[in-house]
């Protein structure tokens, strides 16, 4: 009797919704797995050379950026978060949200802005020279180094840690911290004994985001001439046209990412001890007085100026100085390209996200949970890896479809898919699926299941229920999923540079190209555009957080 029942419940799970999630997960996983097979594939001569002479440097370069950026970003992020939550001081309310704004600044833009500002003709040295007759010995402020890369990455990425930690402390910590204060703990002891252990899960989540971003970074390291595994992938691919070795590098980077990814899962699992029940009144900040108050304000101001205000101001000045002269007719093409790629990518992300988030809700099985987790794995995978995996899979597809191309009258060995925009879009979808999926999953979590069930008992099919009840209620989540994903795609640099069709430029690739050609004035306007688009998404995040 049971035998006939089990297949029945299994059969009910196989439908369009689950198929969409399976396909989505396959699209995300296939290229990533393909890259991993690079570990076991035979090497060529070049790879032996790379391995012997360069690999250690690449790994050390990446490790240095990861470790130091991770450390400084955590320090700045956590200290600032605790300051604005635990204490009141002048401008505290402003900095509570303003310190998230640097997220709008793509690190590669901050990189070339800072490098020009600190260069010999840049605003800092020029001012010292002309106003104060002060000539710095060369190399005093040298950002074209790994120190510079760490500086820029820290300033652009610390807001992840700041934001997650701050939100956590605001919502969860009040009773514990107030108790500790009542028990007479000194401020430092409250910080180390209560705040840090309590906020550990939030801090770790933020740190992981930062580390994945650093491993994925190409723009900053490349601009500052720091050798990392990511930049090495580019050089072997485009410099030596050795995709095979690039793939091997990517496979090794992937191993590192997988290690981090598992570490994150492990740490997340042990996070349950933090009591989520205390949704009590928020923590009352302690007023700081005198020097302490001004010190806090000064620290926040310094970080804000360095991470956001100075670079933006510099970009604005450049854009104004050049007047309209940098406005080129091809900006329109760039903008159209950018919007088209991002629009298509985002639309596909949202489509897969909505189908699979619904499948996950309909069938809350371990299988579906695993599937959706895989679906969102792309955010941890560096753009360069995604790019090389997608390229490999598309070339294989082209080979596989070759007879079919022949029938259509194309020449032998024609590359159709792997020269098309489809390849870039696929890369975007893989890398940013997590953003879209997260938004829709949250939307479904907010919606009581009883709405859908009521609709079913009122005679509407599952599909009709989706369109008439769920979709209208998901509108807000769809919008925020769209904005967040769209902006990520627009800002994305390495993936676009590696996978774009010939002669296809976006705002980000063009801005970066101008910057590497030492044409920072020309880069200013598209860069400002990108920052502005980024600001939209940051404001969205801030607004979502408040509700």
């Amino acid at each position, binding site marked *: *009797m049971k035998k006939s*029942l089990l297949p029945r419940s299994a059969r009910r799970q196989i439908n369009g919704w689950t198929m969409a999630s399976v396909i989505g997960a396959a699209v995300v996983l296939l290229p990533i797995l393909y890259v991993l097979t690079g570990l076991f594939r035979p090497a060529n001569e070049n790879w032996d050379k790379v391995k012997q002479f360069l690999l250690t440097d690449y790994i050390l370069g990446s490790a240095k950026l990861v470790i130091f950026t991770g450390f400084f970003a955590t320090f700045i992020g956590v200290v600032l978060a605790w300051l604005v939550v635990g204490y009141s001081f002048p401008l505290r309310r402003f900095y509570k949200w303003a310190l998230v704004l640097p997220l709008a600044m793509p690190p590669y833009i901050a990189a070339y802005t800072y490098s020009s500002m600190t260069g010999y003709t840049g605003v800092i040295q020029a001012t010292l020279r002309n106003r104060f007759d002060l000539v710095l010995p060369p190399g005093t402020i040298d950002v074209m180094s790994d120190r510079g890369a760490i500086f820029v990455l820290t300033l652009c990425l610390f807001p992840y840690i700041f934001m997650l930690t701050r939100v956590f402390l605001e919502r969860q910590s009040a009773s514990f911290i107030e108790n500790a204060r009542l028990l007479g703990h000194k401020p430092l002891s409250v910080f180390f004994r209560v705040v840090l252990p309590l906020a550990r899960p939030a801090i770790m989540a933020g740190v992981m985001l930062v580390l994945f971003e650093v491993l994925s970074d190409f723009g900053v390291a490349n601009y500052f001439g720091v050798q990392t595994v990511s930049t090495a992938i580019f050089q072997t691919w485009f410099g030596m046209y050795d995709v095979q070795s690039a793939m091997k590098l990517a496979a090794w980077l992937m191993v590192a990412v997988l290690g981090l990814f598992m570490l994150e899962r492990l740490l997340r699992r042990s996070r349950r001890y933090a009591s989520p029940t205390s949704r009590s009144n928020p923590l009352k900040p302690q007023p700081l007085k005198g020097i302490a108050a001004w010190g806090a304000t000064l620290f926040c101001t310094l970080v804000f100026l360095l991470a956001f205000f100075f670079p933006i101001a510099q970009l604005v000045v450049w854009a104004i100085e050049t007047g309209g002269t940098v406005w080129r007719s091809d900006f329109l093409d760039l903008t159209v390209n950018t919007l088209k790629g991002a629009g298509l990518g985002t639309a596909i992300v949202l489509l897969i996200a909505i189908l699979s988030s619904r499948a996950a809700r309909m069938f809350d099985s371990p299988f579906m949970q695993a599937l959706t987790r895989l679906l969102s794995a792309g955010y941890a995978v560096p753009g360069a890896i995604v790019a090389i995996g997608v390229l490999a899979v598309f070339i294989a597809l082209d080979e596989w479809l070759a007879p079919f191309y022949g029938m259509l009258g194309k020449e032998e060995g024609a590359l159709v898919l792997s020269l098309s925009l489809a390849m870039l879009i696929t890369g975007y979808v893989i890398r940013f699926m997590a953003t879209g999926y997260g938004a829709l999953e949250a939307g479904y979590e907010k919606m009581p299941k009883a*709405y859908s069930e*009521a609709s079913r008992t*009122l*005679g509407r099919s599952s599909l009709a229920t989706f369109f008439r009840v769920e979709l209208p209620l998901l509108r807000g989540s769809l919008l925020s999923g769209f904005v967040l994903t769209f902006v990520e795609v627009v800002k994305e640099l390495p993936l676009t540079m590696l996978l774009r069709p010939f002669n296809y430029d976006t705002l980000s690739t063009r801005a970066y190209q101008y910057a590497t050609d030492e044409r920072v004035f020309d880069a200013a306007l598209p860069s400002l555009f990108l920052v502005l688009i980024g600001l939209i998404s940051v404001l969205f995040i801030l607004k979502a957080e408040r509700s």
Partner: protein
Amino acid sequence: MSFVAVDGVTFRFAAGQSAVIEDLSFAMSRGETVGVLGASGSGKSTLLRLIAGLEMPERGSISINGRVIVDERVFVEPEKRGVGMVFQDYALFPNMTVADNIVFGLHKLKREERRLRLEEMLELVQLSGYVRRYPHELSGGQQQRVALARALAPQPSVLLMDEPFSNLDAHLKAAIRSELRQILRQAGTTCLLVSHDEADVDAICDRSLHVRAVEASDFGSAEFAR
């Protein structure tokens, strides 16, 4: 012949877990209002969800008006069972007005019929002045009546109500209880009403069914009173 027949139904939420409902059988005749009593966690809501088709039993069969809606081979989807349900917290669609909520299940009717049915329902639950309101603009008692009207509008063969009074103030409860009894009689509906309060069931139902958590008994988990 019984109108609703539940026969030997066993259900568990996941393989390996203990059964929430084990070998449960009972019957209802047409037009009857039966109360389901039992401690919290004893499986009352689960029983309603099984009849509505929101969960699938592991064993046993359920039929309504002679038609098998679930057994070993058959599973009729909830929308095809002709079963109405009033959820514990009403589950009114927050983005739709009272009128839109009530006509939601009337999509198969013609426009004119739909309008007439809406008016009839509004009159039955005495909410004629509230058609344009949204659920959050109504009191708890009014929301409950909208949920009732919405469930009754498509003229279900069986109405299931899950703790319809749990979200109401005590002083509202008495008034609404007698009102509900009257509405159900007037509509002639066969109704299964879940409550953990014996007084509710006494006031509304013709007879009652006691559900006990499965661990307590090896032989069936339901017994009739009265």
